């Protein structure tokens, strides 16, 4: 499951673990025919790969993949900013593709080595966070929305109002603690774009959340699905894939993309600067974008895939699942989350601190 709460808490410890895991891979490589050892270091979210993907890739290419895990984008960024410890392929979200790009931490992709990129659906071919897909290939996409317990809420809570601006579910509401998501979604609810939010709208969003605080049970770190499953909250902001995963365990849970629109994220495959084995990295990215490999991943992780060829291979309970693929009307009002510079990040962070303290 993506962004597991235990791992988030263990952030530092997890980083330490993957460090030691890598130590064995960076040194003492024996040269191979292609000039690179048959190894690859992948830095990925937890349970975010197909059950047999790495074994299949090894069978196809002879390259052994060593996967290390991160729990948050921040962790990934901090590791790479301190110097790439030997990762060949990383899986940052789109906002962090921008951050990494600005900080000159990404290697440009050699598109000629990724012929399978034709499998990518047209709407993911040319995103504004990476025009022309020069640095990133889409791995999944995900949409923020509301997860809820059907027996405890009235009808379908298809508006942000029910978590942001109403006391109907007082004491049973969970929202994000991440500053940028909260401010941007608040702006969406008030009818603004999530980009270049005017100062006075930020203040209005903050005032709204401060009013709403007595009704909110918890500001969570992306473990909303666990809180929902445990009965700690009945209505919670979360990513569609996270809720889709717990819906398999509890049929009383559901997910809706609010009618005011929402934020879309896209996790991407990138090659960080200083990757020791860029050739293998390209081969891996190309492999993952293949139809069979993409379908194997989608079958396991139940996130929406941007891979058209893989999608065609998927059964209808995935393709027509309204949680995994929200209806077009809802998606039409969604925007990509974007990184808008350090000043903004700090303004959002301080606004969130004000909300917490109020």
């Amino acid at each position: 499951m993506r962004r597991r709460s235990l791992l988030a808490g263990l952030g530092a410890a997890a980083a330490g673990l993957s460090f030691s895991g890598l130590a064995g891979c960076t040194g003492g490589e024996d040269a191979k025919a292609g000039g690179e050892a048959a190894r690859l270091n992948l830095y990925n979210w937890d349970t975010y790969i197909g059950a047999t993907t790495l074994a299949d890739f090894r069978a196809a290419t002879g390259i052994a993949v060593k996967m290390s895990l991160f729990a948050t984008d921040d962790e990934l960024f901090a590791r790479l900013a301190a110097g790439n410890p030997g990762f060949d392929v990383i899986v940052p979200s789109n906002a962090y593709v921008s951050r990494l790009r600005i900080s000159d931490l990404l290697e440009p992709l050699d598109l000629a080595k990724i012929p399978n990129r034709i499998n990518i659906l047209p709407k993911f071919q040319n995103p504004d966070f990476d025009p022309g897909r020069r640095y990133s290939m889409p791995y999944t996409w995900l949409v923020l929305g509301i997860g809820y317990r059907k027996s405890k809420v009235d009808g379908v809570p298809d508006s942000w109002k029910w978590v942001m601006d109403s006391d109907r579910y007082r004491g049973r509401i969970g929202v994000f603690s991440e500053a940028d998501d909260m401010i941007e979604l608040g702006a969406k609810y008030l009818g603004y774009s999530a980009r270049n939010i005017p100062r006075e709208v930020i203040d209005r969003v903050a005032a709204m959340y401060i009013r709403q605080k007595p009704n909110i049970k918890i500001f969570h770190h992306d473990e909303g699905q666990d809180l929902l499953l445990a009965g700690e909250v009945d209505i919670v902001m979360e990513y569609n894939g996270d809720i889709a995963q717990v819906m398999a365990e509890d049929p009383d849970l559901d997910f809706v993309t609010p009618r005011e629109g929402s934020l879309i994220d896209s996790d991407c495959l990138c090659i960080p600067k200083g990757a020791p084995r860029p050739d293998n990295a390209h081969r891996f990215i190309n492999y993952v974008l293949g139809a069979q490999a993409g379908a194997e991943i989608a079958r396991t992780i139940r996130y929406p895939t941007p891979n058209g060829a893989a999608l065609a291979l998927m059964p209808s309970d995935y393709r027509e699942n309204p949680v995994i693929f929200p209806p077009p009307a809802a998606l039409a009002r969604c925007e990509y989350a974007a990184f808008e510079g350090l000043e903004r990040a700090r303004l959002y962070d301080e606004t969130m601190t004000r909300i917490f303290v109020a």
Partner: protein
Amino acid sequence: MDRPIAEARGLFGFLVVPPTAWLIAFFLAPLGIVWAYSFGENISLTKIVVDGSLDAYAHALQPLYLGIIGKSLAFAVLTTLLCLCIGFPVAVAMAFAKPRTKAWLLLLVMLPFWTNLLIRTYALMAVLRTEGYVNLTLGWGWRSLSAVTRLVGLRMPVFHPLVLLHTDAAVVLGLVYVQLPFMILPLYAALDRLDRSLIEASLDLGASQIGAFARVVAPMAAPGIISGIVLTLIPSVGAYLTPDLLGGPSSLMIANVIERQFRSADDWPFGAALSFLLMYLTLVCVAAQSLAARRRTAPAR
């Protein structure tokens, strides 16, 4: 002590080098780097210049952040007081127990250290949750009780689970749970060394039980009390995991703000300045403690 002093000094030097080197390399040097950051500025996402700027401190001294430090202090003081109230009787019981019982009690106090803090905090969450063990037990008791009252024709209202997790009270409970051994152990060490005959003498000379406690036991245990307070208070102010996992919408403590500066907000100088405000506070506390200790020993000479 017939060995030449020079030789003893050589041995001392030999023994003291590794820990000192360790302390410098892995404690003072990293701390120095963070301290330097606190006088720096971000020029890009990943680059910080240390130019002696005091902007980060000016930012950290705003009422918003001072308020959070104040709140963290309040949490920590409350935690320390509770630890003292709970820990003192425990320490007394341990000090006056039979040697065998004493060993067992000591083991019980130490036992939680063998489990990771994160695991213990998650266990506490399982206890306090809406559908946790406390509420399950209470709900079972309530249902049994209402089954009995129904027999005599009385209908009791439906049981509503208590809100225990994600509150300020849960944070204080978690902190007390984690910090209690750090209070008990120094108290026990001080009480165990206590000369029993002095207590007997005070009782023989007509002091009441309470009088003997207040005027003989407590003053002699003072060094243990002060160490216990320092050992409990300082880590509590900087607690991160406990408020993060057990806290509610308003349970933000200063360490949580610092964490965000080093991660999502990417403002290391500001995070470093906030960290060092805590550090300066800690140094003041420790200085006050050693000053108090010196004052106590001075008249004896």
